[in-house]
């Protein structure tokens, strides 16, 4: 669903804005075939060449275009990390990186197709806005916002979706008011709501973990905080610590573990293995807040 929304929205942008370009490395090339026929100069499939895909995007941006760069997350971010660092950041140009696969959508494909570390890798670099939509209805607006400027944007799409979209999720949006704050990033909202159904907590949602809404955190945190993220656990620990610097607090950071799960199955199986299903979240949140 999110991938289709991405293809549809980007195809519209190609028609609306002559600055828009799309760079692919075979992944989703079929879905972009109609757009490629209409805009052969701006929809470019370089083949299975992720370093080139990223370098080409940097070059397009140097000429004033706005490239959307797309692949599976491990090939888009992990594999071509130095191209992201140098061909974009060091050149002082931007692009919109749009990944699919997330941490374990490719459950049966195995670890080669999983990128739990993508957001943490981008955190080593300057100036990346990171969108982690929790529902496909949030995707179009995020892409359109990214098309309107030249900065560096990462959009992390996934098959795991919440039941409801929150188009106003760029800041911390309070979903339920109560005691200690639990922040759910992107698709973590539904499992967090289910896990905390009968707990006295405040649940806030965001689909924009970078920049993290520091002002919202300071307003909402009263001593205790649980961050629940769909990528490596603790990825936002530094941002939380900086936002709450000088404010006494306890924090629990939940997310994907660093250990490789050498099993296949479904993404639900992997969520359970990482304690990111409702039951796993509930036991750890309840223990922390006890």
């Amino acid at each position, binding site marked *: 669903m999110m991938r289709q929304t991405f293809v549809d929205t980007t195809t519209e942008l190609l028609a609306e804005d002559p600055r828009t370009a799309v760079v692919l490395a075979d992944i989703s090339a079929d879905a972009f075939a109609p757009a490629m026929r209409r805009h052969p100069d701006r929809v470019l499939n370089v083949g299975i060449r992720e370093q080139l895909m990223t370098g*080409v995007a940097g*070059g397009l941006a*140097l000429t004033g*275009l706005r490239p959307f760069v797309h692949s599976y997350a491990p090939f888009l971010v992990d594999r071509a990390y130095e191209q992201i660092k140098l061909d974009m950041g060091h050149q002082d140009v931007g692009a919109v990186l749009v990944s699919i696969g997330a941490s374990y959508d490719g459950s049966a494909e195995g670890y080669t197709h999983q990128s739990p570390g993508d957001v943490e890798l981008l955190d080593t670099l300057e100036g990346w806005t990171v969108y982690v939509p929790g529902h496909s209805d949030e995707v179009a607006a995020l892409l359109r916002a990214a098309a309107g400027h030249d900065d560096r944007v990462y959009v992390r799409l996934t098959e795991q979706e919440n039941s409801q979209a929150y188009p106003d999720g760029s800041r911390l949006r309070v979903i339920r008011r109560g005691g200690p704050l639990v922040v759910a990033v992107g698709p973590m909202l539904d499992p967090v709501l289910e896990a905390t159904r009968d707990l006295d907590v405040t649940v806030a949602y965001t689909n924009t973990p970078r920049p993290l809404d520091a002002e919202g955190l300071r307003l909402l945190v009263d001593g205790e905080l649980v961050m629940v993220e769909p990528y490596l656990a603790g990825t936002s620990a530094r941002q939380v610590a900086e936002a709450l610097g000088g404010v006494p607090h306890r924090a629990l950071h939940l997310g994907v573990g660093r250990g490789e799960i050498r099993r296949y199955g479904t993404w639900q199986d992997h969520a359970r293995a990482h304690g990111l299903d409702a039951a796993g979240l509930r036991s750890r949140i309840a223990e922390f807040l006890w």
Partner: protein
Amino acid sequence: MNFKLQPIPMTLTALPTDPLRPLIRRLTGDEKHDASSHSTLDVLWVLYDRILRLTPETADAPDRDRFLLSKGHGPAAYYAVLAAKGFFPADWLDDLGGWDSPLGHHPDRVRIPGVEVGTGSLGHGLGLAVGVALGLRAQGEKARTFVLLGDAELDEGSNHEAIAYAAATRLPLTAIVIDNQSATHGWPGGIAARFPGWVTAMVNGRDREQIEYALAKRHHDRPNLVVAAVEPKWSNR
């Protein structure tokens, strides 16, 4: 389609010009990359003096020709040429790598007028150049795109992604490889053989007439390669 210009004398004779030598001498800070910095000198001079439609006044013009120095190592010759052509004051050459200097041991496009890309890590310029050429084409610009690499830089696999794609899409950019035989394992069979589908030319990288002739030629439906051979980096090879 391929043509060769022979022979290639491998002795560096005193250059007939030039304002460049004294400028390079001012760049005394660049000792690490001394040999590699001079291998590019004649090609760079010919580019900026005779080929590129680019001046300090048009350094930001959308229709300017683009030159990307992929081989960011040893930029002394590059800096000397840019200074000689007025892109920045020659005074800048006196503090290479200094805290207050815009000139580092690898060039930074954000700091130096006329520099299209910041390089230093090898294997990035050709992919960027492919993107620049595609971006110009998509916007209807006729400007040319040039990129300069070293023969050792071709070791980086990223280049070969770009080489194959440029050939497959018949992208009319011009790559120049300065061959001073510095690649550790060499390129048996020749550098041009690594560029299938490109129009290739071999020139003496110290002969400015040959260089100009090869760079002025432009095939509009194929990528163009000019291999410019200069004296070997290590004389015992």
